[in-house]
Structure formats: C-alpha cells, structure tokens
C-alpha cells in the first residue's frame, strides 16, 4: 500500500505497532521528527538497528516539550543512561506513553518517575518542593512552599514514613479523575 518505505523492515514496524500505541504511519512520522532533531546524527536507514542517541539539549527543544517545566525530567526518565540521551526506541516509548491512548496506570508509573527528582523511588519533601517550584514558577514564597509540601505529604502518605511511595501516589491518582495529561 503506497510507496515502499526503506527506513524500517516490516518486522520492525510490526514490533513497534505491537509494543506501542502507534500506527505504522505515526511511527514513520515519528522517525521523521527524530531525524529532524539531528539530521547529521540520525541515519535514515534503521534496518540494521544503528545505535545512535540524540542528546537531551536537542530533544527538549521540540515544540511539544519546549515550554513544559518538567521537560528535562520527562526525557531523563525515558532514557536508559539517565542522562537524557534518547535512542529512537526510547523516543517512541516516550511519545507512546504520553499519547492519549496510553492507560492511566502506565502514565501514573512514569509520572512518578518524573516527579522523583533524586531517583530514590520515593517522593520525599525535597522532590515535592522542586515539583512545586517548577509548577508555580517560583510565585509562592518559601514558607508557603514548605507548608504546601508538608500538608501534601500528610494527606497522601498512608504508611507514615513521611515520604510518598509509589503505592501512595497511585492511591492518590485513582482519586483524581482529572489526571489526564
């Protein structure tokens, strides 16, 4: 159907369609966007699975992410090395989870990773403070920030260890039907 594309083999495209929420055309379009970010770095031919990664600085300049206060954290949580350099697989993964078709549970897992700034698998008070500062662009005073974070942990922490584990986070998300993205 249509012109034969030579970027991916059919098996690769099938694998992508099975493992992500995208259709064939969307995956090819994504590859186009990925190539645009770094044309000299990204090969057009992916049939032999080249190992190239686009650095963080180029990815956060995409219009979808540019104004997002959490852009660095989003890209870092999808990268294998934790530094934010994404291979094409990770790139597709990121947009698959961010798309509308991903279920809430999947988004909740990645949202937890994004808000966990010190990557210790808990949302401690410092994580919440950093999140809040990015959300409000430093419009709240430091005392207000402290107060909000304390109260938030008080409300959501179930087992009393004064930080939020993933179970606490998930429990809170299920009570918020507006957690859309």
């Amino acid at each position, binding site marked *: 159907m249509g012109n034969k594309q030579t970027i991916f083999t059919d098996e690769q495209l*099938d*694998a992508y369609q*099975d*493992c*992500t929420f995208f*259709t*064939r*055309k*969307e995956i090819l379009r994504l590859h186009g966007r990925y190539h645009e970010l770094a044309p000299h770095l990204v090969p057009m031919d992916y049939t032999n699975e080249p190992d190239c990664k686009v650095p963080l600085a180029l990815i956060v300049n995409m*219009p*979808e992410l*540019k*104004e*997002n*206060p*959490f852009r660095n954290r989003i890209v870092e*949580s*999808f990268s*294998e090395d*934790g530094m934010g350099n994404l291979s094409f*697989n*990770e790139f597709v993964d990121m947009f*698959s989870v*961010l798309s509308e078709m991903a*279920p809430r*549970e*999947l988004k909740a*897992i990645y*949202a*937890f*990773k994004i808000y966990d700034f010190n*990557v210790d698998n*808990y949302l401690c008070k410092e994580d*919440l403070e950093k999140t*809040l500062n990015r*959300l*409000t*662009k430093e*419009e*709240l005073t430091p005392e*207000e920030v402290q107060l*909000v974070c304390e*109260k*938030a942990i008080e*409300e*959501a922490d*179930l*087992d*009393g*260890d004064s930080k939020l584990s*993933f179970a606490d986070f998930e429990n*809170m*998300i*299920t*009570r*918020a*039907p*507006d957690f*859309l*993205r």
Partner: protein
Amino acid sequence: HCCLGVKTLSMKLNAAHPISEQSDPLSLSGRSRGAIISQYYNRTMQLRRRRQSRPAIRDFSRSARPSIRGYGMEVDSTDAEVSKRDRLVNNLQNLSVSDRVRMLRGMPLSVAEKTLQKEKHTLSGSQIPCCSQLKYYIIIGARHSWYSWLNFLHSLQLWQVALKTVSGRFGTGVLSYFLFLKTLLFFNFFLFLVTGAFMVLPQAVHPPVLPAGRSSFSGLELLTGAGYFSDTVMYYGYYSNYTLRKSCRDDGGVQNVSLSNGTRLDCVSKHLSYNMPLAYFFTIGVAFFITCIILVYSMSKSFGQSFRIDKSHSILAMKVLCSWDFKVIKKTSVKLMSENISTQLKELLAEVNQKHVKNTACQKLWRLMVHGLAWTICIGSTTACVLAIYYFSGSRIADNNLLLTEASLLALPVVVSLINLLLPGLFNLAAWMEDYESPSVRTYVAICRNLMLKVSVLGLLCYHWLGRVACWESFVGQELYRFLLMDFIFTLLDTLFGEFLWRLFSEKVLKRRRKPVFDIARNVLELIYGQTLAWLGVLFTPLLPAVQIIKLFLLFYIKKSSVMMNCQAPRKPYRVSQMTTVFITLLCFPSFLGASVCVTITMWSITPSSSCGPFRELKTMFQAGKRWVEELEKDNPNLSVLARAHSYLVENPFFLFVGAGIFLIVIYFHSQVVDGQRKIISLLQEQIENEGEDKKFLITRLQSIHEKKRTPARRLTSQVSLCCSGALQQLFLSKAKTISITWPPLSSYVFFFIYFSFRTSAVEIPTSSRQASSVL
C-alpha cells in the same frame, strides 16, 4: 537447528542488553526490572486462568494485624532474570492475541525490552508443526489487515490538527467543548445515513405526484423552510403512504389508494416493493433505539472514569501532583496555567489555615433571603417569557402579501432565540449577586436554571404544535427547521458581539489586559439545545440531521477562530472529566429522553393528519407496524405465535413494569456492593496505617537494641575477663532458647524481626533474654 537459533539469539540478546539490577539507576517505582517481569508473569498467569486477582476477604484470619502471608505479595525472588523472562514469554504465548497485545503495550518496560519478548515468542513459534504453522500464518495475515484497517481509520481523523492547536493553547477544558461538538457530529451523521438510506432515497427515486400550484424557488426558503421546500423530500408530507413498486406505470390513479390490504396492481415486478409507511416507522424507531444505546454506553463509560468511591481528602496533594495539563504547549498559556495553579494553592492554603468561621444566625438568614430572591427572579423571568411566547404564538399575522406572511413565520423563532440568548445573562447576574463560594456549585446552579428555561420553552412549543393545522406534521417540521436555523444565526451573532466586539471593547475602552473568558458550560448547553431540536424534528423532517451536520461543521470553524482570536482559558479550575460526564448525562436525560418521549407519544397516540404523509388514514402511526404483522400472519399462519408475542410484549404495560422492576433491583444490588467496597477501603487504610506504625516501632526498637548490645558486650567482656563468664553466657543462651520455645507470641515477633532484618541489612537479631523481654 531451531534450538541452536534460539540459543544464539538469546546469547546475542543478553550480550546486547546487559541488564543487572545494580547498574540500572532508573529502576521503576521501587522495583527492579526483574520484579516487573515477575509481576507481569503473575498477571499473565491470572489472565490465563481467569482467576480473581485479589484474595477474598473471607480467607483472611481475623486479626487486627494480618500477617503478610495472607496477601499475594510479590516478593522479589532471587531467580535469574533470564528464567523469569522465559516464563513470561511462555505465558504471553498462551494468551489470546488481543490480550497479549494489551499486556505488551501496558507494560512499563522500554520498547527494546518488549521487542525482546516478542522476538523470543515469534522464534519459538517457528518450531510448531505445519498445520499450526498455517494457523500461525493466518493469524499474522489477520493482524496485518487489522493494522491496515486501523491505519485507514486514523487517517480519517477529523480536525486533528485544529484540536491540537486549541488544546495547545487553552488546555483540556476548552478542548472538551470541541470534542463534544465532534461527538454530536457523529450522532447526526449516523442518523443522516440511516434516514437517508431507508427513507429519503427510496422516496426520492419514486416521487409521488404533487398537487398543482407549487411555488417557485425564492431565496426566503432557506430561512423559512416553507414555500418551495414544503413539497420536497424534506418534509413528512411528501412521503407516500403506499408500497412503492418498481416499474409500475404510475398514471394518475396510483396516488392515494391505500394498499393496506394488499390489493394488487397489474405490475410486472412484485418482489422489488418497498412498504413506505412501514419503512418510515421502523427507521425512526430503530434509529432512536440505537442512538439510545450508544448514548447510555458512552454515559456509563464517562461516569465510570470520573466517579470515585471514597471522598477525596488529599486536595492539596492532588493539586500539586495532578493538576498540570501536559497538553498545553504555548508559552503564554503555560505561564497562565502556572499563575492559576499558584493562585489556587494560595487559596487552598488560606482555607486550610484559617479556622472555619461560623456564620451567625443573622448572616444565615440574610444569605437565605438573597438566595430566595435570586431564585424568585429566575423563576419569575422564565414564567414571564413562557407566557409571552404562548400569547405570541397564538396570534398569527395574516396579510395579503404572501412574502410578508412567510417572513412572519420567522417571528416566533426569533423571539425564542432572543430569550435563549438574553435570559442566561440575567441568571449570571443573579448568581453574581448570590456570590457562591464554590465554583462547581455555581456552575451546577447555572446549568439548572438554564435547563429549566429551555425545558419549559420547548415543552410549551411542543404543546402548541400538536394537532393545530391541517398537515400539522409538515408544519411542525418547518417550525423546527426555522428554530434550528435561528439558533445558528443567533449563535453567530453572539460570537460576534459577545466575544469579538467585547474583546475590542475591553481592550480599547476599558483598557483591560485580559481577554474575555470562553464560557464552556453555556456553549455546551447551546449545543445540547440544538441537538434536542434535531432529535425532535427527525420524525417530521427526515433531512434535519443533514442540516444539523452542516450547522455543526460551520460552527466548529467559527468557534475555533473566535476562540483563538478573542478568548483565554477559564481562570477557575475546571474539572474536565466531571463536567464531561455531566454534559453527556444532560444530553442523554433531559435532551434525548424528552425528544424520544415526544416522538413516542406522537407515534403511539396522536392521530396523524389525513391529507398528507405516509400515515394518512391510519388511526395512529403505530398501526403501520401492527398492520404489517397482521398481514404477515395472514400470509403465513405459522407466524401467529410471533404476532401474539408481539402484541403481548409491546402493548401490555405489565411487561414494562416487570422489566423496570428487575432493572431497579439490579441497580440496588450494585449500590450495596459499592457501599461495601467503601467500608472495605476504610478498613484497609486503617490496616496500612497500623502496619506502618508497627514497622516504625520495630525498627526503632531494633536500633536501640543494637546500640545497647554494643556497649554491654564491651562491659560483659571486661566482666568475663574478671570472673568466669563462660557460664554466664551459657546461662543467657539457654534462657534465650527456653524463651523462644515456651513463648509462642515471641516466635511470631521473631519472624517479624527476621523479615525486617532482610530488609534493613544493618540490624542483628537479639539473642539475650533481657533484650528480648525489653523488646516485648
């Protein structure tokens, strides 16, 4: 040869992706990749056996502190990761295709990981014998065709770029209005297809003979729907009441002969006949039925997504973590959103900090009076408008000039649209006077008042229309066409004045920086009103869905450009999923239910006019169906059972009562289940808190014991060096042994110690009796 392939592939994969738990800095949510794989292994097992995922509460031992063994906890076993992955792949293979794909997509692993799973699965699939290989290829082929079908559907997506632009700038609140518009478009498209295929097309192909004296086309028809249009396929009156037959020479005598008892003409082809009255009746009935099902399904889905069993206490936490709208990408909108969130957080903090000020009795009375006054104003104005419409519709302007008479038909729609435009403004003023604290209460009250107005206006109009004029159905159809059109024109005017000119005014004259806010609730209510008119009118004007489609199409582009130019996103927090549920419920309950009740009453009990339409000379429209059943019975006596069953089920009200009773009982059971779940949730929360407390207590005690153990050990050794300590140590150890044997509760605490000691590696098990007793 195949096994070798598997082996080399697995070795290659392991080399390419060296995964070890230590080197993975981003282990997901407190669990390593291996734990995720074992968790999904468990899930696939359950999916395979279709067992319930949660152990029944009954099976738990009755204790305030349930033991961990009662829960199906996923303890990280120390299996090699490769064997875990193999087991998971094995399980995935045995699931059905759709389950497998859903599992794969939902796993929080990277695409690289998942392709590993897939490759392993497909490779081991090539070992199967040839017949199953054929099945395998068929499955692959089916999957390819399914994906290409999905691709085709995706390419048909309407307005994708436009919606993305709007959501990028305004967020999900304003987007929900446009998505609602798209949903309505699809409903109308479905109606149009059904009525077009089964009613309009056959009648257009076999036009009846029209009475003489048809007016020619003048431009006014587009507005009034009368004149030239009144004798076209657009209205009820055009449709023939006999069975359409192909290649019958229709001379003058065919028209008004009713063929209800099957009189035969000398026609050649008998098998290509089309019973128009029956088709009309059934098409409308089936279209409404299918629309009802689709509406109820989408309403229940939306309700399920937004309803939460327990009340939310964690408002602040939710505001911090869940309120960011990731769809917004424009810089100024992002800035606006941050400002909104900080304002809301400050308000919440103020609320939480200050003590709740109790209103004095005097203040309460004052507030009650204000509310009463506002409601009186609203109800009074609604009643006044309804009476005005009643008297206005009663008077009819008769003039010699035909054109003026036709134009005067537009007077009533104009008046009604004007009322619909101006009165909500009055309601807003009343709400501003009342000054509600919570914005959601304010929105609900506004919706209630608007609904009350529209329902009373529509109810009066329905009463006014039924059975007035000769060929009243066509007249009603024309009236509804005019109302729909006027509604559209007034929406355009409102967009022009309310948004465009108001923005210019507020920028230039009032010198305000902020643009006017897009009122989502009011616009959605207008859409619902228009859709109610369309549903009311389908019976009388089969082409009305087409008109509605054109109107919605134009409205989308007009509203989108207006919003982009003139408006900004709402400042108050807008709970999107809750409001979407409310709107779909409003579409289903007052709107669709009212329209279908009107249509049902018309079909069931009102006499159709005798001079036009497919049901002339029948007592009710419903008789068309009954007659057909009687004819069938006459032709095939075997079907008499069916006919009797039909008469019992449809006409006997007892069956409806029984059905409604069963429905209510089912609802009652479900509500009791929800109640029980609420209680269980609070119990489980208590238990989690208790376990947390236990953990803290035990850890602090263990730490203090560990501290104490260090210092007495030194003193003990010094004492031992002074006197014979060996016997003392022996005594301690023997005491510890007897204690552990004779005190069963202690052993369970020891189990806790052992468990937590694996968790926190820096803790040692106490061995002396004194330390054990101090722990107890």
